[in-house]
């Protein structure tokens, strides 16, 4: 550690400063060996009789057995939700609904460390992120929508609104608890009941959340959690729900939309992205580098709005790339539970295969690859932070969503060209603009086809701010007032309109 290297007659410079490991304790999380489906406020054995193992992706160590819900299980959950809806929840006073949401929010805060550890354990993300981002934001979403529950008539004045009924919600594995909060909080605030299916690889925080629901004494059946793979999701889509809210891949989103066509069921989709992070030559360079890193290596790049296409103004290409590469050497890849880890494990074998496949394609197409020297653990699923330069717009790595810690760098010369290149994608979820010039930020924001545009920052979220996509990134918004709308039926209140 404190070995010193003598260099000339100068004071010795240390050979290394290794930070001692600083792992967050796993003790706080108590896992069951085997879980049931959460239906009607109880954990029940799946009628399918099937279970599968969920893993810690950083070690491939099995954590628990999870039920694989079949169509019968899903139907039971939806029926239970329907009953809870008509037996009281839809008639509960709005203030009563708010009470439960506030309770859930507070319990999430109280148990935040437990959720943070579990989220990192099951998902592979660094504890720093689950502790500072995922869990606090999840609680914030419940607080936010708790506030709206008894104010819906002010949220949508002159429109008489009522809940839809049962919402079927399917969430992805990248932010398991946060996506759960994005889905459940507005649904309950609007007076619906819920059947939620967590992602196959990351069901544990949703199952721990069931405990929070019981602690909050939420009436049984208002929220039901069914676990399983894509087949379970498909069964939920086909079931007797009134609405489907899906966050996940564009491919599956399209299949869901086809399935629901003509059924009258409502649908919101939050799908993939290939966001442009646009760096102008007048930006604050060092801070832009941080934004680029946060844009693509945050959560191992498993972020639908990740800034995966870096568009750099050619006049600062070289200094920026130099700074970026240097910065990558300080990224700490490793144990997700270590408080100093910046980049954790890839979520699953399947996802790692996909990343490796696309990276190989990038190299084959002629892009130049850079990875900082870093020791990856032997067990588990890992991928080093990666930058591709010499990328042409036509390469697969510039077109397809990689959903991993892989950045493709392209250049532009003028603002017009930046807009043109940024919009040249089937996706349209998010974008970043880095410039000191306020007027240019607004100019760009008007022209970029993306649901979320960050200026001089990236991957910032707030419950009050709507989130969602253009084009193949989906439709419907989550967060803010916009996020309530998809969970309500509206009738124009003619008397009110005339009166008002």
């Amino acid at each position, binding site marked *: *550690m404190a070995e010193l290297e003598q260099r000339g007659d100068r004071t010795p*410079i*240390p*050979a*290394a400063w290794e930070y*001692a490991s600083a792992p967050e304790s796993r003790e706080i999380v108590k896992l069951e060996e085997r879980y049931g489906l959460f239906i009607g406020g109880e954990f029940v054995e799946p009628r399918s009789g099937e279970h599968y193992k969920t893993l810690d992706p950083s070690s491939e160590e099995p954590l628990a057995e999870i039920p694989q819900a079949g169509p019968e299980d899903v139907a039971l959950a939806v029926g239970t939700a329907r009953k809870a809806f008509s037996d009281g929840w839809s008639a509960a006073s709005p203030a009563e609904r708010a009470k439960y949401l506030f309770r859930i929010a507070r319990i999430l805060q109280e148990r935040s460390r437990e959720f943070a550890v579990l989220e990192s354990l099951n998902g592979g993300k660094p504890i720093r992120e689950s502790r500072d981002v995922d869990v606090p934001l999840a609680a914030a979403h419940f607080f936010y929508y708790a506030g709206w529950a008894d104010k819906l008539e002010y949220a949508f004045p002159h429109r008489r609104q009522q809940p839809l009924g049962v919402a079927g919600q399917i969430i992805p594995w990248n932010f398991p608890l946060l996506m759960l909060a994005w889905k459940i909080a507005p649904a309950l605030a609007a007076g619906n009941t819920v059947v939620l299916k967590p992602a196959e690889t990351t069901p544990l925080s949703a199952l721990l959340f069931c405990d929070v629901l019981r602690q909050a004494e939420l009436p049984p059946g208002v929220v039901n959690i069914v676990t399983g793979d894509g087949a379970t999701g498909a069964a939920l889509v086909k079931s007797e729900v009134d609405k489907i809210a899906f966050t996940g891949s564009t491919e599956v989103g399209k299949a869901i939309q086809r399935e629901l066509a003509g059924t009258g069921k409502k649908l919101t989709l939050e799908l993939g992205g290939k966001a442009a992070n646009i760096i102008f030559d007048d930006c604050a360079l*060092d801070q*832009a580098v941080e934004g680029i890193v946060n844009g693509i290596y945050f959560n191992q790049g498993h972020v639908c709005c990740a800034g995966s296409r870096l568009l750099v103004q050619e006049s600062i290409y070289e200094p920026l790339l130099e700074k970026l590469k240097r910065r990558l050497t300080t990224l700490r890849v490793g144990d997700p539970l270590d408080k100093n880890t910046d980049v954790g494990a890839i979520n699953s074998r399947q996802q790692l295969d996909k990343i490796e496949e696309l990276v190989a394609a990038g190299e084959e197409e002629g892009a130049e690859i850079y990875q900082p020297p870093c020791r990856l653990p032997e067990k588990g699923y890992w991928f080093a932070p990666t930058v591709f330069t010499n990328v042409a717009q036509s390469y697969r790595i510039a077109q397809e969503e990689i959903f991993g810690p892989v950045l493709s760098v392209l250049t532009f010369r003028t603002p017009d060209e930046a807009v043109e290149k940024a919009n040249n994608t089937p996706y349209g979820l998010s974008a970043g603009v880095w410039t000191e010039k306020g007027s240019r930020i607004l100019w760009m924001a008007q022209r970029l086809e993306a649901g979320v545009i960050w200026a001089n920052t990236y991957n910032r979220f707030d419950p009050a701010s709507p989130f969602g996509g253009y084009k193949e990134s989906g439709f419907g918004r989550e967060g803010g007032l916009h996020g309530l709308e998809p969970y309500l039926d509206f009738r124009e209140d003619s008397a009110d309109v005339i009166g008002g």
Partner: protein
Amino acid sequence: MAQAPALPTGFELPLEPRLPRIGSVDQVAVEARATDLSRRSIKREAKLFALDLAVRMMDLTTLEGADTPGKVAALASKAVRPDPSDASVPSVAAVCVYPNLVQTARERVAGSGVKVASVATAFPSGQSPIDLKVAEARRVVELGADEVDMVIDRGAFLAGRYAKVYDEIVQVKEAVAETHLKVILEVGELGTYDNVRRASLLAIAAGADFIKTSTGKLSSSATLPVTLVMLEAIRDVFEETGRRVGMKPAGGIRNAKQAVQTLVLVHETLGLDWLTPDLFRFGASSLLNDVLMQIRKEKTGRYQSPEYFTID
């Protein structure tokens, strides 16, 4: 041959390759980055390493009107032997005192390797004619200071007279010759991170060996984001020119935790090469005892009562 248009003085050194921009700093983002880095969890041997380093990097300072030979002698003794009960605790880098007390400090630290630093150029305001500042700096060197900490003229800087600020540093650098020159920006009076960056580059271009945050006379001084901005300026100069400039945060660093956080900032911004007293110093008066207390805690596993650490 046509003559190139004259540039204002102060724009020849590392600026050419950087044109057309000095660069700017985004306040929100730089503060967020500093906060992120401050959350690094530094424990056990890594912490002990940092604490030991912090002692070796310390400029133990007293700059008070009430300073006397007695006070400075005590401080200088402490600098040489910070923890008499633990021989493995190293000496600090330097003692920093007013010019009148340089001689006293020199006598006390003689032979120990501890340097004597002093302040010049109408410290702390810098609001004096340049000839006086130059004379003062020269005199401080004659008095036996190994290192001179000068202040920039913030009045001139804030009035946009950058060339004046630059010229003064050049002249003081000439006056002190080989003596180590630290240039104090007094960031608390500069108002913005952009100004901190600009003043850092200006001071470096003018010949500073070190850039230093503050005089210690203001309440707002060596915060983590300010330190980060200055380290980034140093990094840019190093990457463009290969020249290594030192950094000294001073004022406001009162406990060991802040010192360790600052060292993390240095480590992750400039790397191991700057983790040496040749290129990094802490200017502090009350930091040392907390660091000593933490060192003993790391070694014994227990906190020792403050009474066991000398007050000087």
